[in-house]
């Protein structure tokens, strides 16, 4: 059963002098207890997608089209009041810059209690404190954190606080937006494994936004590769990473050095993300794609569904020659 259904979601930002199409006609469905990684370059619209689901985009400049159905509720049709109720109970989020995720001038315990009470106001002070401390302990933090200020914690600890905060009401869906990016490897490894464990315990469904392939590789079941507001490839991690079909995915993987074996030459993808305020006719990746043909510049590729729910949006998929040429 899918817990989250995104249908033809498009987000455009209308600023003074231009219109930026940050998310373009994305459809995605998330099954219960799934863990989906969304990878892509900076500016490809990952955060915008998450913020659109959370209904946190600035109303004045962001136009949203499409549908997002969370647990049967059409989010875009909810009133502000209803959305506020859904937030954190059904849908929680952990942001990247966890150092700044909480107010620097309030104690952690105070803020957590405050947030808890938004959805659960009938709890005694003492119980609440116990609850918060147990949350902290769940993410391996000592109870003294309750009385500390954000700046007194290290990055890793703050990230754990953020995670504890997000798990407060056992949300149905947890979105981690670059939640481990700022951490060093050791801490990141620890937190990832902690999350995976908690997930088993709490029946969480998780969307994980990152630009680090290896994080997806180690912590997600499925992966969506985003580029300039579009999902170019989607499928099980083991399919997509082992057998990438889209030239962009292939390029990404080729730009990452290996750990084992001989040192293969790596190389990046030439060019940069296109200007999102200029509408593109054909494939959005065409301008950087080394295999692009005329059709790529003219016609937008449709999504191909391959075996194992592996989906790709590329004119060249099916032929596969290009990939082989390159692999030799």
């Amino acid at each position: 059963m899918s817990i989250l259904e995104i249908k033809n979601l498009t987000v455009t930002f209308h600023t003074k002098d231009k219109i930026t199409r940050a998310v373009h006609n994305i459809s995605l469905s998330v099954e219960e207890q799934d863990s989906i990684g969304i990878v892509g370059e900076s500016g490809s619209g990952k955060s915008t997608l998450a913020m659109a689901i959370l209904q946190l985009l600035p109303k004045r400049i962001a136009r949203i089209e499409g549908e997002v159905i969370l647990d049967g509720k059409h989010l875009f049709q909810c009133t502000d009041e209803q959305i506020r109720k859904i937030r954190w109970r059904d849908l929680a989020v952990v942001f990247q810059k966890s150092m700044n995720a909480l107010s620097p001038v309030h104690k952690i315990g105070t803020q957590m209690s405050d947030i808890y009470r938004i959805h659960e106001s009938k709890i005694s002070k003492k119980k609440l404190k116990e609850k918060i401390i147990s949350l902290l302990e769940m993410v391996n933090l000592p109870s003294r954190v309750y009385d500390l200020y954000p700046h007194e914690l290290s990055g890793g600890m703050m990230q754990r606080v953020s995670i504890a905060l997000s798990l407060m009401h056992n949300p149905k869906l947890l979105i981690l937006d670059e939640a481990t990016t700022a951490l060093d490897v050791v801490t990141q490894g620890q937190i990832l494994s902690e999350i995976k464990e908690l997930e088993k315990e709490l029946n969480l469904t998780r969307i994980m936004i990152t630009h680090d392939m290896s994080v997806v590789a180690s912590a997600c079941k499925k992966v969506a590769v985003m580029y300039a507001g579009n999902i170019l490839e989607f499928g099980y991690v083991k399919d997509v990473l082992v057998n990438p079909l889209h030239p962009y995915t292939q390029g990404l993987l080729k730009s990452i050095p290996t750990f084992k074996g001989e040192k293969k030459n790596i190389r990046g993808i030439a060019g940069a993300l296109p200007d999102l305020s200029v509408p593109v006719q054909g494939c959005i990746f065409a301008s950087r794609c080394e295999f692009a043909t005329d059709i790529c510049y003219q016609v937008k590729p449709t999504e191909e569904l391959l075996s194992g729910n592996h989906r790709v949006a590329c004119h060249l998929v099916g032929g596969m020659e290009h990939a082989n040429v390159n692999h030799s």
Partner: protein
Amino acid sequence: MQTLITAEEKAISVENIYKYYKQRGKRQRNQDIKSVDGVSFSLNKGEILGVIGESGCGKSTLGRILVKLEEPTSGSISINGVPSQNLFKQDPLAFRRTAQMIFQNPFDTFDPRYTIAKVLISTMKLHHIGESKNERLAMCIDLLEKGGLKPATEYLHRYPHELSGGQLQRISILRSMLLEPMFVVADEPVSMLDVSIRADIINMLADLCKRENTAMVFISHDITTTRYISDRVAVMYLGRIVETGPTDEVMHNPQHPYTRALISNSVQLDSFENQQIIHIAGEPPTPINIGPGCRFAPRCYQSRESCNHEDPESTHIGNGHYVSCPYINE
């Protein structure tokens, strides 16, 4: 081979660098922050040393000390056999040309009010490179095109915010190379960049080092990148190098328990399915109240009583591989 290399031939040699910061708060009076706590190493011309280690272990501090953006509390650095202290005293500008640094955040490396041309030309002026404005401008164009930014005139009059991170980092590297340094410190030069651009920047750095025979200290916490670029690696923990040696030797045959944990924790794409993560307990400690024993002991999965008392010496286990742990074979 190794014994034949004399100190003079070393591009840079570093001995017993210490850097203690004074703590200003009243609670922790008289307790210094031991950011770098006795680091020694040397580099040949054109050699790249990767420095890895978790956040806060003193990598950046070490980097800054190497290029004299900060003074060490004690210890000495010599470049080409000459103490950098003397070099700097004699001619600070010349020293700056000798040792350069590339910073982590390309988006903040340039004054937001300077165009790229102004950035480069003011650097040239400062170091008396080129004679006239026109000559310098021509050099800029040349430089940018060499660095893969074509056509250069496209970029010259742009402001930093009008360029992508990759382009900025290229320019940052190009600016350093403009001064033809002997020695470069690259402090996490790609960690803020997209994966798709990182490769090019790393290649560019590696190429330059080989071409100009520049020695480089490459600071990173990314194991695979470090493996890719560096000839040797040094693993730092709490201000010390706990393990050092040729890259593949250290990476594939890690000896120090910390190195092992570090490597096992950094997930790699080519082995993501059957990864055995070594957990190390606790938080990364702050370099303030370091006990008398091994500094990794409190978090070490194989620590024993003696570790808490004896600070282990660095021992050579062959092939230029040094480890500061007496229990490596167990």
